[in-house]
């Protein structure tokens, strides 16, 4: 792997930029692998990277039906935070946040991780009480989160309108300073490049169409659009398409897939210094380094695999944004798109072994799994390598839907992010 550094940049500049290698190979699938990951999103690519780096399992393929990062990874609004309510979730998301803090160095790839802070606005007494409860619970778990008065919130984020006459007055806000954003494509590419350098085959345009099992039910391989490939360790990391893949091994899942939308505006000079979320009016906004306002909308009401959402959903979000920031009323939107998110009944993910020997699943990240990418990948690689969950992902199993030990983060995940 050609390492990136200031020195390499200068040398290539003098060279007319002609000496750069391709960042990962484009291999033909081999007949068999020690482990196969289905889904070339950042969670899947990261899983392959950690399998190779931490567990020495390098004969690994990532199979992606389209192009890597073309699923929810490349469609998300990149909010990263770890201020979830319950102990299990705080441990999971903060594990990820700690890995984010050194990801660019680990991967030798600038993922533009920016800890600009996430501000969650309180508009009524209920919000205020809920956020304060979150702040206390987070701090007991060693996760930073603090309560700001309206004036303090305005000082942190000057474009905020805290006038009392607003339709949705700002009574205060919860702020996680370590939270922020990252460049989504770079995360997929950085993991792909680093995994490839360790020997992982990244195989694009390769759709998995079947899962092969022996008489005892054990996984023996997959059928794909590029032929059959053998393995006895199969990890499914397919976000909105998880139910479809798991059905290939006869498994029914506690999942529903919904379209979730986002929009970006025309680029403008820096105006939004942090991420601002409002659960009550269901809107959130940040500004990309290119200058676009990045706005997240809600999910459609019904399940769908259409990868686009209804217009009235994004219109509703824009109304909310204009109420909060009247100065954005004349901004024009440049693009909007949808991704298919897989939602569990308790809004917490599943990172687990399954009933089928050799079959593992990492799914249910719903509207908010980008923030968990390195943690999810790290823990799933552990689970695949050791055939047992890590302490942190042990609670995020499939059995909880039968035992009733749900991890109900519906409140923390109320707004799609």
């Amino acid at each position, binding site marked *: 792997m050609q390492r990136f550094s200031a020195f390499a940049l200068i040398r290539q500049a003098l060279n007319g930029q002609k000496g750069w290698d391709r960042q990962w190979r484009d291999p033909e699938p081999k007949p068999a692998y020690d482990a196969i990951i289905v889904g070339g999103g950042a969670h899947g690519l990261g899983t392959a990277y950690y399998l190779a780096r931490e567990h020495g399992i390098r004969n690994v393929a990532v199979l992606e039906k389209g192009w890597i990062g073309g699923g929810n990874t490349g469609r998300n609004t990149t909010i990263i935070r770890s201020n979830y309510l319950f102990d299990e979730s705080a441990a999971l998301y903060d594990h990820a946040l700690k890995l984010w803090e050194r990801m660019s160095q680990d991967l030798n790839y600038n993922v533009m991780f920016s800890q600009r802070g996430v501000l969650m606005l309180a508009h009524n007494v209920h919000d205020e009480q809920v956020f304060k409860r979150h702040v206390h619970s987070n701090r007991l778990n060693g996760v930073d989160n603090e309560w700001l008065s309206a004036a303090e919130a305005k000082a942190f984020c000057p474009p905020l309108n805290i006038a009392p006459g607003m339709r949705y007055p700002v009574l205060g806000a919860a702020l996680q300073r370590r939270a922020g954003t990252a460049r989504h494509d770079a995360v997929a590419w950085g993991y792909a490049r680093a995994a490839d350098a360790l020997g992982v085959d990244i195989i694009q345009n390769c759709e998995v169409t079947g899962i092969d099992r022996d008489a005892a039910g054990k996984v023996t391989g997959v059928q794909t659009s590029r032929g059959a490939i053998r393995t006895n360790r199969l990890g499914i990391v397919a976000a909105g398409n998880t139910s479809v893949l798991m059905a290939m091994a006869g498994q029914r*899942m*506690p*999942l*529903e897939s919904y379209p979730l939308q986002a929009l970006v505006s025309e680029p403008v000079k820096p105006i939004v210094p942090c991420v601002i979320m409002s659960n009550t009016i269901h809107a959130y906004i940040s500004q990309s380094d290119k200058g676009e306002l990045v706005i997240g909308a809600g999910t459609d009401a*019904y*399940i*769908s695999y259409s990868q686009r959402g*209804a217009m009235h959903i994004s219109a509703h979000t824009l109304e909310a944004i204009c109420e909060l920031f009247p100065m954005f009323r004349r901004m024009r939107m440049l693009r909007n798109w949808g991704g298919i998110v897989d939602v569990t009944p308790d809004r917490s993910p599943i990172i687990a072994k399954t009933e089928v020997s050799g079959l593992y699943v990492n799914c249910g990240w719903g509207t908010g799994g980008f923030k968990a990418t390195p943690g999810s990948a790290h823990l799933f690689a552990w689970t695949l390598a050791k055939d047992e969950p890590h302490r942190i992902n042990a609670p995020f199993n499939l059995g909880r*839907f*039968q035992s009733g030990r749900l991890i109900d983060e519906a409140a923390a995940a109320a707004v799609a992010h």
Partner: protein
Amino acid sequence: MLLITCPFCGQRPEIEFAYGGEAHIARAADPRATSDEAWTEYLYVRGNARGLHAERWRHIRGCGRFFNALRDTVTDHFVATYKMGEARPDRTEGKQP
């Protein structure tokens, strides 16, 4: 926005309706005799079909009545809507007639 045909009122815009999840999931007749597996299936596990999906809708801002629909979840085409209590129409293709 989708156009949905209420079996009682005819074609109306999507925002008049509320979605009610997968259809034809019956609650156990004898809850105490029902296994944990069956409860899990009833409460949490869903087909999440990529293709034809039978689902409940309610014309909440219209006649207020519940009905079922068969929709293709890839194209969002409604293949059929039918009254509660009627069997799922026997269709295999997803295109609107």
